[in-house]
């Protein structure tokens, strides 16, 4: 299965796991690219196909991904990416599905009706990355109740203000110590 940890690094490009083939079999009409990461197979799909892919991934018997492990947003500067890590308790295999969208149009379909656990994950991603999950029942900010107005996990959001503040603070201490 795909979960067999590969000792090789990704740079050398290990062979694809069998799951990539299963995905292509189950979703014949969908354009996708597969790559092997250190543990899981990662399937990249287009935004339009995401809902269909996820539905198939959950309901197809060959895939049967009944558990959404994790939903992570990644900011690739030119594009935003959402990675869905899936696991199947029935078949014991896992895979990642990736979808990308431009940063100025971060609309994605929700999957919270397929997996309830996606609800909070999507809220969190929406809050920290600025995604808009269409069809999500309640897309309020989760970790910051009142909302921040900016997306802290995007690479464009700097830690610089904090650093400046630190520098001022240390400078003040230095001056105090110097006297």
């Amino acid at each position, binding site marked *: 299965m795909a979960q067999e940890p590969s000792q090789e690094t990704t740079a050398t490009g290990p062979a694809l796991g069998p799951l990539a083939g299963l995905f292509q079999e189950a979703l014949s009409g969908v354009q996708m690219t597969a790559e092997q990461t250190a543990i899981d197979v990662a399937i990249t799909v287009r935004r339009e196909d995401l809902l269909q892919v996820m539905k198939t991934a959950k309901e197809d018997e060959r895939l049967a991904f009944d558990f959404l492990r994790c939903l992570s947003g990644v900011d690739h500067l030119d594009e935003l990416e959402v990675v869905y890590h899936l696991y199947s308790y029935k078949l014991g295999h896992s895979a990642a599905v990736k979808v990308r969208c431009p940063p100025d149009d971060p609309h994605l379909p929700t999957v*919270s009706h397929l997996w*309830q656990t996606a*609800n*909070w994950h999507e809220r969190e991603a929406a809050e920290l990355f600025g995604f808009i999950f269409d069809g999500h*029942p*309640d897309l309020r900010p989760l970790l910051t109740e009142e909302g921040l107005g900016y997306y802290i996990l995007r690479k464009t959001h700097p830690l610089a203000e904090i650093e400046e503040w630190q520098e001022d603070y240390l400078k003040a201490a230095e001056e105090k110590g110097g006297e």
Partner: protein
Amino acid sequence: MIADNPWVDGLARMGIIAVAIPLAVIVLTYVERKVLGRLQMRLGPMRVGPYGTLQSVADTIKLLTKEDLRPQTADRWTFELAPFVVVMPVFLAFVTLPFTADLFVRNLELGLFFIVAVSGVSIVGFVMAGWGSDNKYALLGGARAAAQLISYEIPLVMAVLAVAMFGQSLNLVELVEGQGRVPFVVWQPLAFLIFLVAGLAELYRQPFDIPVAESEVVGGPLVEYSGIRWSMFQMAEVANMVLISVLASLLFLGGWNWPLGEEVGAGLQVVLIFVKTSMFILVFMWLRGTLPRLRIDQMMAFCWQVLLPFAFLQIIINGWVLVYGWPDWVLGVLSGMAALAAGYLTYRMAWRAAEPVLPRLHRVGSVP
């Protein structure tokens, strides 16, 4: 008799009570912390004074000098009077409580009735505190206190009534003297158990600390109180514990009597009642450290489905035995069997209450 003049005599006895109870509260607070510490493998207070003996004195001073806070939105008079309403009945009850054959303020003919009647008043204080604090935790706690204390008052009174039936008196001194040879607990184990459980609930201590549950309603009615008013609640609680323990040893363990009916002097009487009372107090403290809290519906069900029917059963058994003039041991056997039945029923109830209920997950429509 302390003095010849009845007024001076009464005043002197009241003075003793009024000084002794707060002192006992101070001592008991320390003892409780030590006992709880021991059974949790801690040392308890150790810093103030040798072995921490002055800890509760220090606490008292701190509480007395602390600012007496009142929430701005609280109902002023309800809030401020509630501690007095809670603490007064306890002191009133002590008026007629005989510690030895001669150590009491007034030996009322209807002493038992007086204690029961007066101690019921403190419920009002809790409801007042819960309402007047204008706090939702306090409100929840006050409602819980009202439900619990009123419910458990009934089996308590019934158990006391059973004793009064058997002892043919409501005068506490006569009741104690009536059990000169054999204490009532032998003849009425069921009433004894009911009294103990209901008394524990009246004290709102574990496993019945539902009104003041720390992890749920954060102290319930007491949540907004501080300083001296809070310490009044505390004093009422501990004094109530003393009251219930003394009452239990008077009604069921023969009070100041030596178990086999020998006459003892006044000094030994004090020792005897002290030992018996401390035993109950220790048991209460021990249970506090051992048992978790019941849920409110389980507690109410336990009261109305187990304690109350069996309290009536005890009275019915007493009635039969007294009317038909059967020997006392019949009463003891019947009551003991009923007590075992009550224990079994409780055991069953604990497991039946724990039967699985349907999953709730799919019943909820909305999304968190």
